[in-house]
């Protein structure tokens, strides 16, 4: 029988982490994501599955605890919000460089600086372009509902271990704080790791294993980079996820991700009522980006409007994808402000349809 | 009379730091006039007064000394 619950996005993420068989959560409180660690502490996953939950002294410590646990081949997860995610970038770069699997959720709030605690999508660049130092990529999943938070938590661990790469779930203050009906998957068992790359204790007669992101020779570091790039090309080939709404006959296209895509869908419906043939393309993976989907639809539509809760970030990837084939504009509210469907429709009319 | 001992020095791994020389109570060790492949003067035995106390090996940062002692 389906297990349906009414849950907050942050709590659903925490519950999904327990159910996916995660071995460890390391976190640090920050609004609007503190419910994740609060839920975990209250639910005593150590009794349910043996999962470790630890409140670290900082986001930096938390991500490095993740590094340690992930280096042992364990399923480790941390969550934070924008300023905290900035602090985690050092660790994420090391995790990507050492090719360890882990899951990180960013419940994005408005910035820059301490910014605001209200929802935002202004960490798009930080998530999809790497975020820390060096040539690396995170796989970035953008849920638009509490249900997708749950589903993507499971997917994130699958992808993290498939590619030995950190996976970012880019949520935001809306999805994290909103309560929705959610169907939970059944408890999965925790798995004892037995990976060659993991430090699980040296095997007798074999050389010891070490986890590192250091290469002293440039030739060796280039080889590492080439291997990483090959992996990213694989990810781009295999793991793109997106949804299209009413795109078949569309003359104009809206593009939005996460919570903003839900508002944009309403704007699309309003536009259709006014007689405009408008579709919506929603990337579910921000990296790998649905380049081919945008490229294809660029031949069909007269223009694309990206709608984002930022000053124009995904719009750059859409422009790269369509490579000049059609006009691409951006409409955004930011700093914690949320666009309403009317102003999106208005922007569509002004920037694309009438423009 | 003290027990007799002997040391074997892995001269290619020796960096000629001389810490063993100052740790040897019998003044058995000295630096060779020659150098190894890394260019270091390496430690050598200069007499047969070794008692196998292992002090030299215990302070050797590069673990290049193996010690034997008459049983």
């Amino acid at each position, binding site marked *: 029988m389906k297990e349906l619950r009414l849950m907050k996005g942050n709590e659903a993420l925490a519950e999904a982490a327990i159910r996916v068989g995660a071995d460890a959560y390391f976190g640090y409180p920050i609004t609007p994501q503190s419910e994740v660690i609060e839920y975990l502490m209250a639910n005593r996953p150590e009794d349910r599955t043996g999962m470790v939950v630890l409140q670290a*002294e900082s986001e930096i410590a938390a991500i490095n605890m993740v590094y*340690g646990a992930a280096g042992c081949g364990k399923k480790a997860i941390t969550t934070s919000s924008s300023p905290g995610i900035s602090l985690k970038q050092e660790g994420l770069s090391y995790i990507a460089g050492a090719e360890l699997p882990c899951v990180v959720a960013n419940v994005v709030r408005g910035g820059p600086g301490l910014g605001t605690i209200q929802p935002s999508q202004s960490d798009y660049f930080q998530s999809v372009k790497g975020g820390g130092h060096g040539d690396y990529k995170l796989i970035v999943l953008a849920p638009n509902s509490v249900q997708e938070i749950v589903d993507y938590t499971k997917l994130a661990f699958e992808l993290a271990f498939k590619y030995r790469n950190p996976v970012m779930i880019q949520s935001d203050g809306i999805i994290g704080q909103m309560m929705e009906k959610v169907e939970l998957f059944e408890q999965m068992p925790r798995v004892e790791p037995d990976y060659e790359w993991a430090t699980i204790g*040296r095997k007798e007669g074999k050389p010891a294993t070490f986890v590192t992101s*250091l290469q002293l020779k440039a030739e060796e570091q280039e080889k590492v980079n080439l291997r990483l790039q090959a992996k990213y090309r694989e990810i781009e080939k295999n793991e793109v996820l997106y949804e299209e709404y009413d795109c078949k006959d569309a003359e104009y296209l809206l593009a939005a991700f996460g919570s903003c895509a839900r508002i944009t869908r309403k704007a699309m419906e309003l536009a259709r009522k006014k007689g405009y043939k408008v579709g919506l393309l929603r990337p579910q993976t921000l990296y790998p980006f649905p380049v081919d989907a945008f490229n294809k639809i660029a031949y069909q539509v007269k223009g694309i409007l990206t709608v984002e809760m930022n000053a124009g970030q995904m719009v750059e990837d859409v422009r790269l994808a369509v490579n000049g084939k059609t006009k691409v504009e951006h409409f955004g509210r930011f700093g914690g402000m949320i666009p309403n469907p009317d102003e999106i429709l208005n922007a569509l009319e002004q920037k694309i349809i009438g423009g | 009379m003290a027990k007799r001992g002997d040391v074997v020095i892995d001269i290619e791994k020796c960096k000629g730091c001389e810490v063993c020389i100052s740790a040897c109570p019998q003044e058995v060790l000295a630096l060779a006039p020659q150098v190894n492949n890394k260019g270091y003067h390496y430690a050598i035995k200069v007499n047969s007064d070794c008692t196998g106390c292992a002090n030299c090996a215990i302070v050797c940062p590069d673990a290049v000394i193996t010690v034997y002692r008459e049983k």
Partner: protein
Amino acid sequence: MAENLINPENLVYKKTDVLTDRIMHYCPGCGHGTAHRILAEVIDEMGIQNETIGVAPVGCSVLAYYYFNVDMQEAAHGRAPAVATGIKRVFPEKFVFTYQGDGDLAAIGTAETIHACNRGENILVVFVNNGIYGMTGGQMAPTTLVGMKSSTSPFGRDTKTMGAPLKITELIAQLPGTYFVTRQSVHKPGNVRKAKKAIRKAMEYQKLNKGTCFVEIVANCPSNWKMTPVQSNKWMEENMFPFYPLGDIKVPEEK
């Protein structure tokens, strides 16, 4: 010599197999090599080579994983105690150690160090204090002595502008999470033996889940102190030991 003593039955000392055969990159006479060796010997003697996971820092000992024949992870600068926490929490039955220098442990990683110790993580922290940043070429460290010259304190450490050297080990000893805190050196045979005993004790306590054990090793840095190894050991005795006195700082209460 009348007979050849060099045969296995007369063997009294040889390099432990818990160290690999790789030539260490450390400068001649550097204390790191000896500190590595005694830690490896303890692991060997306790028979825990396959149950030990180490964490290397950023600093001269960044490549420690080349020399220890145990599973190891290389941490970001200062983060070794957090990485070790992650390892120990998912593998509570393993022996976990960090090996860190003064810049790593007492400057950039102060928060991670203090909080791991405060939580009483069941790990061994080996802290090699030579009062200088070795790998980057001799800059001032948190533990650089007052008046001591370095490339970033070329006229000597001036406490008015640079602060006083940090006795982090005394600070660590104040924390309820630490069980055994000691300061040792590895420059003379007697000191090496004592330091090794301290590491052995720490590992035995880890087996009993007693909390964090912290072993500082005051060490030399001949290259950056610009002395010969033997001179540097003498300088260390005369200058480092008065400020960083050797001995146990926190010992478990005997029952």
